[in-house]
């Protein structure tokens, strides 16, 4: 493995982990709102979070560019307050990966929360727990498998993210070039040996995350 492969791997792991970590809490909260509350307009929320699944990633990248790009209010705000220019950085790649992987993560968690026996939660209420306490002490622990599964799916989706990333983060070697972007570049210049190595690397990441997932589940059942 050469330096440029290694830097692509490093960047991919950094971008995907950041995207996943950003998503965990909002995904759990939104899944709780959708499955466990009687909030009005829940359906709208449900549709909104699923939109990134329906829109091509390139288009998501385009929207993000509008929001984060030069002269947008948000980018001005970030430049003035924090002095950072987010576009064409690995952080922009992380945001792109977070947006595209979010619906998959939430959907997986929703399924597991819906499968919890509702009576267990009602029973916890009669034992003195209010709604929030029930979510924290009963719903989340019992949806544990689904939450881990959602995190895993989100992470794997982020590792493979291409379309949105190339628009908002560009394809700068050593700075924003993740594995999928490196594969794309190498295909364009006909470096097929590099392409094969990069594919193997991303396969290795996916397989090891699946193994980690199964180990976690097995431990939780003990």
């Amino acid at each position, binding site marked *: 493995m050469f330096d440029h492969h290694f830097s692509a791997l490093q960047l991919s792991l950094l971008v995907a982990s950041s995207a996943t970590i950003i998503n965990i809490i909002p995904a759990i909260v939104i899944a709780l709102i959708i499955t466990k509350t009687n909030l009005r307009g829940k359906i709208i929320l449900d549709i909104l979070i699923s939109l990134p699944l329906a829109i091509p990633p390139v288009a998501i990248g385009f929207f993000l560019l509008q929001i984060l790009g030069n002269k947008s209010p948000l980018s001005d705000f970030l430049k003035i307050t924090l002095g950072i220019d987010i576009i064409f950085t690995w952080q922009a790649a992380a945001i792109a990966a977070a947006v595209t992987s979010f619906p998959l993560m939430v959907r997986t968690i929703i399924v597991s929360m819906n499968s919890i026996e509702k*009576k267990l939660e009602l*029973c916890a209420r*009669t034992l*003195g727990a209010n709604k929030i*306490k029930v979510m924290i*002490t*009963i719903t989340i622990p019992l949806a544990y498998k689904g939450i881990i599964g959602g995190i895993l799916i989100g992470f794997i989706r982020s590792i493979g993210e291409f379309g949105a990333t190339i628009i908002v983060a560009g394809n700068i070697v050593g700075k924003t070039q993740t594995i999928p972007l490196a594969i794309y570049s190498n295909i364009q210049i006909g470096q097929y040996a590099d392409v094969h190595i990069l594919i193997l690397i991303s396969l290795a990441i996916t397989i090891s995350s699946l193994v980690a997932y199964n180990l976690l589940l097995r431990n939780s059942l003990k």
Partner: protein
Amino acid sequence: MLHLNVNKKYQQFHLNCQVSFQPSIIGIWGPSGSGKTTLLNCISGIEMPDYGSISVNNRILFSSEKNTNVPPEKRRIGYVFQEPLLFPHLNVIQNIKYAQNLAPINYEDEISYCISKFGIKHLLKNKVGTLSGGEQKRVAIIRAIATAPELLLLDEPLNGIDTYSKNQILTYLKSIWTDLNIPILYVSHNKDEILTMTEYTLPIIDGIGQNLVPSSQVISQTLLHSYTKKLQQNSDVNFLQGKIGENTNPDFTTIEINNLEMRIPKIKSSRKQPISIFIPPNQILVTPANPKQVNTQNIYRGEVQKIDHSENTVTILINIGIQLQIIVTKQYFEESKISLKQELFVIIPPSTIIATQT
């Protein structure tokens, strides 16, 4: 004091239950689908009545008029569901601590009392999935007690439990009231359980909560229901109106119907208060011989006025000052050689009389 005025409508079903009583161990009895669980759900707060009010010890838990609906976690009602519903991610003691830590009063002593009494001390560290059905039920009961409840609701607590554990659990349950002083509402469709556990019972039939009756009368109360349906066309059969008479015997309440005195099991009442009673026709005894030896209340003499034969039974209309319909078996009718215009002795056991205060 527990006041219930619960009205809840589903598509085909209307629960209507208006009753007040001093809780001890009170049974709630009715056939499946009669609305028992819905009533408990409303008391515990996990379902909301359409209208009405619920209060325990003068604390209003629900009132449609005052727009009050105390959330379940603040009601201090312990609820043991039909299924044990133990939390699978916690072990036995963690399940109990879950409720104990949230309770307004720490029931440490009560909990250790129950743990040793219910014989689950050796199971405290076990995963709940490894427990038998009876063990799970016991843990669920202790967990409900750990909430320091003012009232404990038990929904068919012996469902799916083997006979040996059943008798054990019945003993434990009684000790919750006698030793810990926690009143219980005991829901069951099983008359034997109701009889063993409770003195008084609230029958719920087709969603209608009746008045409290002595648990021994729960059976006749069911008859009342089937008779009222059957005798719709002849609806005043053995339905009598009277008023409370002078109190002469501490075990019974005397009622006066026209000039006839009749004793029924003790009920709370004041003199001259109007009362309606129903006497199931197949619970009345008739005999040509003078039943001098029989030590019971309510022995009358009357003349047979009408005899109706049907397949296995004979219906006799008899006048003892009031007209009563009596159903006897064909065999008994022939052996006793009952005939028209004959004078017979009529015995009405007080426990078979169903009284409703109007």
